[in-house]
Structures are given as structure tokens and as C-alpha cells.
């Protein structure tokens, strides 16, 4: 995955978890749903990223015994993850503003 895509995937995961703790599959579905299907997060991209974020202390994984089926791992943002999300948010806002200026610029 390119750095740009990885950074975007990281932002999506942090955003999804800011809205509440989620399982991996729910994170992937949340991104597709909230972006109106514009963005997608493949499980192949999501899964190593979640493990990396867990190792780096940005998210915390715990086994969720609820439900009748197999226990599932649920991820939540840590305080360090919230700080990282605030940084990413401001970064993407600056990007969006810059794109808006570019798109509005006349030749």
C-alpha cells in the first residue's frame, strides 16, 4: 500500500473508532457506509493496520464474548489514538481547504 493510501486508511480507522468501539468488519462497513460508498477499506488493508495501531498503542483490542457465535475482537481508541486523530483531522482539513482553493482557482 502506498504511503498516501496507508495514511488515508489510518485516518478512516481512527475516525470509525472515534464514533465508538468496533469490530474489524464493522470498521470496514462503517467507512463504506459513511462515505456513501466512495471510499472502501479492504480487510487485507485494514487487518495489518489494526494490528500495527494496536502495537503502537493508538487502539486497544479486546475479545468481545457477546453474541452466540465465536468471540470477536473489538477495537477502541486509546487517549494516544485520540491525539493522533486530532492531528489527522487538522491535516485533512488543511488538505481539503487547499484542494478547495485549487479547484476554485481560475487559470
Amino acid at each position, binding site marked *: 500500500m502506498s504511503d498516501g493510501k496507508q495514511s488515508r486508511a489510518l485516518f478512516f480507522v481512527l475516525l470509525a473508532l472515534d464514533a465508538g468501539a468496533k*469490530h474489524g468488519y464493522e470498521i470496514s462497513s462503517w467507512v463504506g457506509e459513511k462515505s456513501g460508498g466512495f471510499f472502501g477499506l479492504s*480487510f*487485507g*488493508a485494514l*487487518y495489518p493496520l489494526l*494490528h500495527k495501531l494496536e502495537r503502537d498503542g493508538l487502539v486497544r483490542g479486546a475479545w468481545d464474548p457477546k453474541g452466540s457465535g465465536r*468471540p470477536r475482537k473489538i477495537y477502541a481508541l486509546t487517549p494516544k489514538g485520540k491525539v493522533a486523530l486530532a492531528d489527522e483531522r487538522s491535516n485533512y482539513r488543511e488538505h481539503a481547504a487547499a484542494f478547495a482553493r485549487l479547484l476554485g482557482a481560475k487559470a
Partner: protein
Amino acid sequence: MRFELHLLELEARVDLPYPERALVIDELAGELEAAYAQHRASGLSPEAAEAAALDQLRLDPGAIASLEALHLPAVRRAVARLPASLSGWVELLAAALPLAGFMAFAFSEVPMLLFLREGGFALWLSLALGALALLLELQRAVVWLVLRDHSGASLRMDTPTPLYLAAATLCVGLQGAALGYYVVVGLWADGRLEGRRLPEALREPLPTLVVAATLAALVVLLHASIKAGLRALRVPSRPASSGEGEERR
């Protein structure tokens, strides 16, 4: 069970140490079931829902490589940086050092030189067999519990060879001692051994038995400890394998 084959195949393909590998498979199993339930709820047939869930949650080679890089233990990463010919020696040296330490401790605490003189060839042989068995067990401990290399090729080293060697060590010790007693009793019966020297003569074959039994017991204890360690790490007793040609990394 649904997805069982897929998960087994994935477990064999992913070169992660245990228990991380088992946890990844558990996590994926839960996600697959959730995706399947959602597709079923949306009206897909069981077969279509299963196929859709598998397609959606497929881990491509890139994702597997990322997971492997993420979970590779630091010590194994360091050994992997060495040339292949050297890493084997490092593993052997790491196994030989505790054995050398144990032998040094035994020689300092027990009159081993006297034992060796009295025990003769049988003691030397049982010492060599027992030390080889211990070395094999220690090498496995280094590979499986320190480097945490749980690849199929590495887990195929899990053979009872050290236990056979321990049994051979004990047999040689028993036979050596029995032969010693045979000679002593024969000398005594022929009147070539004075009665007052009998206790000393009866003591001489004992070191062979003591050393052989101690080494054999140590091998069995170490074997059982390593097995318990592997079980605690959730390493399957029959290693998942992606193919006969698989090599250790």
C-alpha cells in the same frame, strides 16, 4: 464447521509465531461468521453468503507479509539478518551454552572425574548419548521458545529422537552397572576379591547408573517442559503445513 478448511489453509500459509497466529485465526473466524450472518440476513443463499464473506475478508499476500513483519519477534529478526549458514550455528551455540554451563556445574559439584575413572566406557557412552539428547532438546527450546520459529519446517523437528536417546542412555547405564556387578560378584565368588574390599568394589559400577539415570531424567523433564511451553503458546501438536518443500526462514 463453516470456513474451517479456509482457516486451516490460512494458518498453514501465515508464518507468524504462536500464539499470535492462533489469535489472528480466531479473529478472522469471528469476522467471517459476522460477515456471513450479514450476507444471509440480506437474503443470500448459504453458499453465496459463504463465498461473499470469504471474498470480502480475504487476506492477500501483501497483507500476510505485513502481518508477518509486524509480529516477527525481535530476536528472530536479528538472527534472520545473519547469513543462512551462520544462523544455524548461532542456534546451535545458543543451545550448547546452557549445556556447557550445566556440565561445568556438574563437574564442580560432583566428583565427575572419579565417576569417569570408575565408570569406564559405559559411563563415557551414556554421557555422550545423554549430552546429545540434551543438546537436541535445548536446540528445540531455542528455536521454538526463544526465536519462536513455528513454521511447518521447524515444527517437523518435533520427533521423539531425544526420548529414544534418553532411553538408550539409561539402557547403557544399566548395562554398564550390571556388567560391573557381574565382574565384582564373579571375582568375589572365585575368591579373588577379599570380603573387606567388597563394599568398595560394589560402589564402583554405581556412577554409571547415577549419571545415566540423571541425564535420562533431565531429558524427559526438558522434553515435557518444552511440550508444555508449546501448548501454552497454542502451537498445534500436528503442525499445519503448506507443503513438503517448505523451508525454515
